[in-house]
């Protein structure tokens, strides 16, 4: 309802004048009565509480020393204890969970590493990939038979020399 009321009329700063913030007429009268009633209720309640406190408390003059603030101190201590307890419980739960989960996760991780499919599927880094290629190249490299030696010369000439289309054409011819 409040949101509705707020969005229903958008207020520009210019619309808010000091006069518009001062109630007048019946509204002012109602607010004045409301204020008087609130003051009366509060005064009565404070007087009542003070009287009750005076009846129960020791005859010590200081408000701070005896009582009136004692319940607040209790609440504060209780709140501190509750907070500490809640945090301790949360920490204990977190620790228990980590003790239970971490070894299992590590186990799963190690098993996954040992799995050959997993190993094959792992992306290789560029350096290890080049090293592997070199290794394969070395493994399969064989000396070229003497009958095929001219071909290797031709191949090297092709790779190092000019590669214009006409030259390539001549070579193949």
């Amino acid at each position, binding site marked *: 309802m409040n949101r509705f009321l707020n969005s229903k009329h958008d207020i520009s700063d210019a619309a808010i004048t*000091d006069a518009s913030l001062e109630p007048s*007429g*019946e509204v002012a009268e109602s607010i*004045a009565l*409301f204020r008087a009633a609130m003051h009366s209720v509060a005064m009565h309640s404070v007087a009542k509480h003070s009287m009750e406190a005076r009846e129960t408390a020791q005859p010590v003059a*200081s408000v701070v020393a005896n009582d009136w603030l004692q319940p607040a101190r209790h*609440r504060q201590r209780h709140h501190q204890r509750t907070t500490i307890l809640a945090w301790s419980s949360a920490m204990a739960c977190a620790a228990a969970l980590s003790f239970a989960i971490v070894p299992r996760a590590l186990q799963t991780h190690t098993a996954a590493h040992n799995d050959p499919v997993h190993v094959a599927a792992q992306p290789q880094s560029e350096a290890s990939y080049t090293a592997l290629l070199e290794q394969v190249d070395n493994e399969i490299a064989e000396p070229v038979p003497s009958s095929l030696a001219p071909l290797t010369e031709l191949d090297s000439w092709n790779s190092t020399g000019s590669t214009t289309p006409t030259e390539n054409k001549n070579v193949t011819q």
Partner: protein
Amino acid sequence: MGHMATTDLAPLTPDKVMPGGTSHEQSILQLADFDEVVRLYRPRIFRFLMSSMGDRDVAESLTQDCFLKAYNARNQFRGESSLSTWLTRIALNLVRDHLRSRRIRFWQKTRDSALDLVDIADWIPDGGVTPEISCLQQEKVKEVWSAVEELSRQQRTVFLLRFVEEMELSEIAETTGMNTSTVKSHLYRALRVVRERVGGQ
């Protein structure tokens, strides 16, 4: 009854005046005698908390909490704001915390000490008026209270600080941490709801 009346509040001037004309140094000295501080400001803090929370027992507990916090932090008070503003700011933070924790503990029932419309209306000081007029006054108070209960938390706070605690706009801004223009905006909206409910304008 229908005559024009205006509230006898402090003027809407931005200049800062300490309540009761006390200076900052006096406020600090005043704080040294904490019993006196409690005696002077307890009714005011209790009233603000009671009108904000609508519950006498909660208001009493929060008043105690407010003064305990103030007592514990009394060495940090530098007198940059008035003692009243400082205490009201503590009270306002307590209200915020309490409402937040109450939202979390939503299953807890509201207690019997919650203020009733009839309760408040019964507390209008008797000005020697006739029963008919007294009845009409009670109706007006009920209308204002029900309008206040409709307001958002910020509008309600600003409204109560202005019209029940009779604080200036600059003091309200300092207490709530809002800009003066924001305070004005909230107050304007709050007043509009009250006007609509009371039906005066």
